[in-house]
């Protein structure tokens, strides 16, 4: 369309975004003895898929994948269930204790994970859920809730209350108004929150290492980080796993990004 005001900045940003990704893929396709040339090789001389096959077989990558998918997926579900209702409550209602809740959320965000490790571990041990996938789902939900609730509240805030009232006039209750009318309009917000939850759960390492001791339920980041120790990094495997870890997320987002578009509220209030 020749609209350089849009295409130029987008182009520049794409270069910035994609160059490291290209370098990641480029490196993953090289045999180890080509990785460290200087001047660097911008494309492998002997392109090889050996790293990928090694990663798949020796680390039981398939199992790590499945575990990560389950944990991240469940985290998103639990997060959404709590956040949709919680955010709506925070957005639409005036009630006592709201400032306190905000302080609670803030504190939760502020606590560094180093501090949370031992207390959470103790709590989980008494709950008896250590070494299950649920312990990770719960932990991720706890850490992601404050931000997600506040963001969702913000999204609900920007939807005029007239919409709720219109729906309730038509015979829904509060909850019905939320589910039938407000939520569809806030869909971009829901999608953003889902993406946020999924990515954070997908990449989280420390809790995954500390709370899980059984290899059968280990997640992807643990397998990835195991390629590094004090004396060496297994670059081939690390890069291959890094690339492969992108694939499901990319597929998810390719599908879900269309819901970031508005177009659902046009005329709803007036029309």
């Amino acid at each position, binding site marked *: 369309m020749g609209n350089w005001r849009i295409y130029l900045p987008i182009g520049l940003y794409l270069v910035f975004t994609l160059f490291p990704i290209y370098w990641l893929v480029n490196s993953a396709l090289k045999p180890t003895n080509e990785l460290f040339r200087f001047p660097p090789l911008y494309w492998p001389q002997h392109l090889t898929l050996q790293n990928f096959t090694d990663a798949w077989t*020796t680390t039981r990558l398939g199992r790590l994948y499945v575990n990560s998918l389950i944990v991240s997926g469940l985290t998103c579900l639990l997060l959404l269930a709590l956040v949709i209702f919680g955010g709506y409550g925070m957005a639409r209602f005036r009630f006592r204790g709201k400032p306190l809740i905000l302080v609670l959320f803030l504190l939760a965000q502020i606590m560094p994970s180093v501090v949370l490790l031992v207390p959470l571990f103790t709590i989980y041990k008494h709950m008896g859920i250590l070494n299950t996938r649920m312990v990770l789902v719960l932990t991720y939900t706890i850490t992601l809730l404050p931000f997600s609730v506040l963001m969702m509240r913000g999204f609900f805030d920007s939807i005029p209350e007239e919409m709720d009232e219109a729906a309730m006039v038509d015979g829904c209750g509060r909850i019905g108004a939320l589910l039938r009318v407000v939520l569809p309009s806030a869909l971009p917000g829901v999608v953003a929150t889902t993406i946020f939850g999924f990515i954070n759960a997908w990449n989280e390492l420390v809790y995954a290492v*500390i709370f899980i001791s*059984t290899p059968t339920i280990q997640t992807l980041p643990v397998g990835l*980080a195991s390629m590094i*120790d004090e*004396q*060496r990094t297994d670059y081939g495997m690390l890069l291959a796993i890094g690339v492969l870890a992108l694939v499901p997320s990319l597929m998810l987002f390719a599908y879900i990004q269309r819901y970031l578009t508005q177009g*659902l509220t046009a005329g709803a209030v007036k029309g």
Partner: protein
Amino acid sequence: MRRSITRRDFFKVTAAGTGALLPRRARAQTGGKVKISFLWPFVYAQPAQAELVNQFNAQSKTIEVEDQIIPQTQVLPKLTVAFSGGIGPDVLAVPGSLYAQCAASGWLENIESRFKGSDLEKDLLPPAVKLSRIYKNTAYGVGYAIALYAMYYNKEHFKEANLPGPPKTLDEFRDYAKKLTNPARNRYGYYLLGGSGWAFQQWSTWMIATGGLGVNNTFFDANNKCILDGPKHIAGVERFLELYKTDKVSPPASATGTFSDAANAFNAGQVSLVFGWLPYIATLSKGLGADKFETVMPPGGEAGQFIHFGGGDVLAISSQSKHKDEGWEFIKFMMAAKNIGEINKEAPMPANVNVLKEKWMDNPHLAVPKQVVQTPEKLAMDPIYVPDYATFNINYSPEQIQKALLGQQTAQQFATNVAKFLTDSLAKLAR
């Protein structure tokens, strides 16, 4: 596209969510076997140890081992949390730099009675026996790998520069490094480490080659004071600093460079000389090519030629384990010559005497280490037994050497600081 959410959707999601949230436990015990857990925090031999675990499980009628690989960077948090919560792994492979610390924490079972006089002990090379007893002269684990800090040089670069062979003295080292350095071609003679992790072994090589070692080849004198602040030692480290500051035979970035950086530069053909533990052989073989470099002793000086003995990795039983006998059975299995050989193929020097005779140990890169490991007077005993060794390695030493390299403190200040730290740390042991 309008998509309205119906009540049905809501209940579907809730039902699915609730169902899926029911705890998915890992599979429970298999048959009537006793289950023990085994922790492996290394990059090397991940498939090899998994294979050995399978073999053990197949042949044992009473014990089932479940092994878990974790990233080494998370080992301390993991063990700290697990042990203080009372559920550490039954058997664990402990990195050498953490061994003394883990023993001091009470996490490891005292296996002196099992170890003393056993076949395991008889088959171990002397340095490995020493390693096993490094903490308070009691065995808290079985050393299965011996960590030696060797020098590696690029044969092609040396041929190009018409150099006869590896440098054997500090002066030769400096000389050769200068000849091999050509900044215009982005080529340097040496990559010295200033970043975290075992920079200590590098700069201290210069110090002990010039000033010698303390009692029993350790870094301490008869009064338990660290020897590194003596005048000869200061002179030694000055020579080291000169390499970076005046001779500039090491790339400017190396002042904060880590082990990985040194390996990468070496593999890229940017530098001709590096130092490192024996696993470097595998790293450099993969990156540069096994036939393009050689493994030799570090250079010596007026006070002698030494190779650092940095302990090594250890198999240990947790003091909290409820299945210590089973754990010991598993360790005995792993320490059999053939098995431990498998583990050590990509790793440090194997500790079992019988492994030395194996075919794969004829690898030319292992010639010098094999020799050295049987001549203890060439070994410099790193202070891995002081309680703060891990901190020293990762934090204190890099901080100090970086300050010295970047001109923020003198060689004398550096030596004094370092010596004081080690002396104080050793004193904690006596308490």
